[in-house]
């Protein structure tokens, strides 16, 4: 479904393109020329003209903006003072390094403590498990005790039955002999 605005074909005619041998570099050259000729219509356009910085800042550079030109000129003007500036900033740099070193040590200490905390957590879990095990053992022992008592009562009943049957046997024997 390819629909076009009536103004769109005119638009593409502003570019010289050999459709049989499309050359992207040449088209991009024309686009960049056209863009550079256009006045920045809004403040946002001026921002748009400078390259957007990718999140990690390793991308290639874009067209030169006013901001960059001013920056370059200032850098040139300040160039003779760079050694002095470096000298002035040296104590600060050393301070930064020391702070960073302290931070690094603190990080290591945190890592160490985290590892110990993890170890403590594991020990705590073991203690909990032991508690549960003890509880289960007591429960089982109690059950066994009850079972034992029940068995004991059953044995007593059986003994009495046995005694009764013995007596009955004797009486029956006596009667038979008579």
């Amino acid at each position: 479904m390819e629909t076009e605005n009536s103004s769109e074909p005119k638009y593409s005619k502003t570019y010289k393109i050999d459709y049989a041998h499309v050359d992207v570099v040449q088209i991009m050259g024309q686009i960049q020329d056209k863009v550079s000729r256009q006045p920045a219509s809004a403040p946002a356009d001026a921002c748009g003209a400078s390259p957007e910085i990718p999140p990690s800042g390793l991308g290639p550079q874009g067209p030169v903006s006013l901001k960059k030109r001013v920056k370059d000129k200032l850098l040139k003007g300040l160039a003779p003072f760079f050694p002095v500036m470096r000298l002035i900033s040296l104590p600060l740099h050393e301070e930064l390094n020391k702070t960073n070193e302290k931070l690094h040590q603190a990080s290591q200490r945190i890592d160490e403590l985290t590892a110990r905390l993890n170890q403590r957590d594991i020990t705590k879990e073991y203690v909990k498990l032991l508690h549960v095990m003890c509880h289960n053992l007591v429960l089982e022992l109690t059950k066994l005790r009850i079972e034992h008592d029940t068995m004991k009562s059953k044995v007593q009943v059986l003994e009495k039955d046995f005694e009764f049957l013995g007596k009955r046997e004797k009486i029956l024997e006596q009667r038979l002999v008579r």
Partner: protein
Amino acid sequence: MKLAFVVQRYGLDISGGAEQHCRWVAEHMAKYAQVEVLTSRAADYITWKNHYPSGLQAINGLPVRRFSVAGPRHPLKFGRIQERILNFEHTAEDELRWLDEEGPRSKSLLRYIRRNQAAYDYFIFFSYRYYHSYWGVHAVPGKALLVPTAERDPVISLKLFKDLFRLPRAFIYNSYEERDMIQTISQNQAVPGVVVGVGTETPADSFAERFRQKYGLEGDYLIYIGRVDQNKGFPQLFDYYLRYKQETGSPVKLVMIGGTVLPVPRHPDIRYLGILPEQDKFDGLAGAHLLIMPSFYESLSMVTLEAWALHKPVLANALCDVLQGQCRRSNGGLYYRDYREFREALSLLLASPELRLAMGANGRRYYHDNYTWEAIENKYLAILNRLEAA
């Protein structure tokens, strides 16, 4: 010839770029050599927690040996170490500590490689930045081929990688830009290397109408396929697209397919469809005017190749030098550095169906010459034969 593919994670359910890349290449190379995969038991790349059972198993007919990861990664600790090594003076030990934390720390995998190196002709390591590649290449440098899958990521400039890049027997790069970046960093021009990338397959047929009906889409649309996050060029694309619509009054819609970690603006012309089946993705691509790739970091961009495979032009972020290089080499897409270039390039592409057709045809040719599986297999075979002959 026996080849071992060594990668941080492996599985049919693992969707990471390098991992999928490794699986596909391994499965295709199995036609020409005896292939085995050596990997960790991890499924999650944040913690590397052991997930799969250890030992030998078969995945799509390939033997896969899994090795345990010694300990999970602590993201906070890792973040602190990375912060230090990227922003402050540090020692080589700090970098190795970072690598240990980066993981997946599988000493059993390294032990296996060292003990069984005679059983394999070559070890093909994927992703330079992980523990297995660094120590694996150190263990068998004479038999190691490294597929770095490197992006313009700050960690690439660490000293330990500068040394690593001079060690392997050969490199298999994803793009010319990746090769140039690694050579600039490490001056490793003496190590043989070849630019290969990865192949891609498109379905036999894709139906734009089916996609339009299924998702209720009408009118022209641009498509973005991939994750919606900051490194992928969001929310910048939202700003550019909405501003473009405001300024030009264009009715063109933006269709987005993939997962998201950022909020998508509520706008009637922005259609976020989430993660879709492969066939729907290709149907969507077939119906689009063009693919937009706003990403800042890409080592190859398979979706760009898929767009070209379907004769679709691409509008890419020029701040990603890989995407810009691919567009220039293929003559299959335009690129932008800022909003004004975005507006011009998009207007031109939307205004000229002839240009879209010509760029789509160029892209298709470029894909066919360089990224069909046949072309990829031949490049792998060529480098292996070259090493054998040396």
